[in-house]
């Protein structure tokens, strides 16, 4: 099985940028074959975590082991096992699409013939064959993201680090990327994913870590986290002070969240709890919807805007 073997393990992992603490003494484990999502507002420390995993940034203190190798001393071995799709576009603009992949293979000591074979396979899968011989600046944003994804897989990594892999993709390209993630999960590739799209995390991740201000504030399976923090359903009504007493009386344990001129009520009761109430208290502009990971995220990290 191998699923009890921690492939990535952090203990007291900390990263300082000067005086600023980006990652603050965090501990986590990722097991073989898992897809783990790192979620958090801008500046929470997600990307810093990912960058420490492929030795791009050295930790300030604490331990981080990848496949039993230390990021402080065994970077070369770690980097040969890991594939990285970074957030920003760092494709090589001096080369064509194909040459981007084959030159990248060279950095991994992959032979020329094997490089051409792998590059062609990736181009085919990511539907970039037609763009094989054009330079990078002739690609759309979505094609660039796909090529970055393809490049991350070129060394057939055991661990794949995806830092906001679908930002800026159209729905077709996003689903293509999701398919590939599922495909890789079947092959027991361990995946770390950071994203701002909660639907993406809910669909792909076996487990998520919510990070805020450099600390892990919650972790677990996406659907369990939803049930635990925001129940099954949420009631949304226009905010009106006159309605409050009746709502508070009906849902004494409910969580009341005001969002501008709307009011959201979360409970830990099962499905159907709001329908009964609405029968006796008809209200205008009312919605009942299933709760989701975004509700959890906003509840735990607050609604204030974050600056980078």
């Amino acid at each position, binding site marked *: 099985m191998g699923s009890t073997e921690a492939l990535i393990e952090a203990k007291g992992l*900390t990263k*300082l*940028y000067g005086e600023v603490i980006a990652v603050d003494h965090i501990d986590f484990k990722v097991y073989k074959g898992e897809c783990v999502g790192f979620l958090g507002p801008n500046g929470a420390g997600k990307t810093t975590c990912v960058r420490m995993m*492929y*030795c*791009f*940034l*050295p*930790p*300030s*203190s604490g331990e981080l082991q990848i496949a039993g190798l230390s990021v*402080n001393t065994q*970077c*070369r071995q770690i*980097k*040969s096992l*890991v594939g*990285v799709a*970074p957030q*920003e*576009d*760092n*494709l*090589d*603009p*001096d*080369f064509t699409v194909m*040459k981007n992949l084959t*030159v*990248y293979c*060279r*950095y*991994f*000591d992959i032979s020329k013939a094997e490089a051409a074979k792998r590059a062609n396979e990736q181009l085919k899968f990511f539907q970039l064959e037609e763009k094989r011989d054009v330079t990078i600046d002739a690609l759309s944003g979505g094609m660039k993201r796909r090529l970055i994804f393809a490049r991350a897989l070129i*060394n057939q990594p055991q661990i794949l680090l995806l830092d906001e892999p679908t930002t800026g993709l159209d729905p077709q390209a996003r689903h293509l990327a999701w398919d590939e993630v599922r495909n890789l999960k079947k092959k027991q590739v361990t995946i770390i994913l950071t994203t701002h799209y909660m639907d993406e995390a809910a669909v792909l991740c076996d487990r998520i870590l919510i990070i805020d201000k450099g600390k892990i504030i919650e972790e677990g399976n996406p659907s369990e986290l939803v049930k635990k923090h925001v129940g099954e359903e949420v009631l949304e009504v226009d905010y009106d002070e006159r309605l409050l007493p009746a709502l508070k009386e009906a849902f004494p344990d409910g969580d009341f969240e005001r969002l501008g001129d709307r009011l959201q009520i979360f409970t830990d009761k099962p499905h159907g709890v709001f329908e009964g109430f609405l029968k006796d208290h008809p209200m205008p502009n009312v919605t009942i919807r299933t709760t989701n990971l975004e509700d959890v995220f906003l509840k735990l990290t607050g609604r204030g805007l974050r600056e980078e």
Partner: protein
Amino acid sequence: MTGPNLRKSPARFAIPKLSYRVWKVWRRNFDVFTKTITVNFFPSLLEPILYLLAFGLGLGGYITSVLGQPYLVFISPALVAIAIMNGSFFECTFASFVRMYFQKTFDAIVATPVSVEEVVAGELLWGATRATINATIVLAVIGVVSLTIRPLIFTPLFLLAIPLAFFGGLMFGSIAMCFTAAAPNIDFFNFPSFLFLTPMFFLCGTFFPLSKLPQGAQGVALAILPLTQVVNIARGIISGHVEPILGLSSPILLLISLVWIIGVTLFFFVLSINLMKKRLTS
């Protein structure tokens, strides 16, 4: 707090751990160069021809001789030295900065088994290669003039200008890379270009003999300006004539310049790699 701090700031003179992967970085730049050879090659061919025309034939027409040599013979080795300086300095400032800062090419490479140190060392070797290419072009132009118009090359050692270009280029490139490590933006390179390269271009015994400078300035040029050393050696192996200055004989000057280049290259090669590592990993 000493633990984390120690790990964060690598020593300035730590000996970098390098492997054959340095050549993969070099090869990347070489591949780009060969792809764009028409824009890279012809301008560098034109420049020495212009220098020879303007300074040699134009200005040289008014100068009967410098240190007993025709003016064109005097400046030819200096043109090789200037090609070495410009070739590597611009490669390891503007071009490296573009790859590092705008293209994020270094970020992409260090996600592979190639290390930061190897990326920087590969850039330095590539800068030295650019210097060699440029200097060889100038040498070829001088050779053609020498065979067809008037003799400019007077020793059989002139082919040593090619290894001189590589090691001189490594020296200028390593110095340049220290500026790149410190550069907050690309305009910053105006400082070294105008305050370091331009003075050397004129004052290192290039277009007039060093002995025309005041004694103190001669001492400064010999003690701290790298181009002086490269010009000295280029003269020794191309025209075969190194002007004695400050009471030092030609062989002694050649020896000083050789030792100077080796020492300064080692110093800045190591320093620039450590400074770049610091910049790229914090």
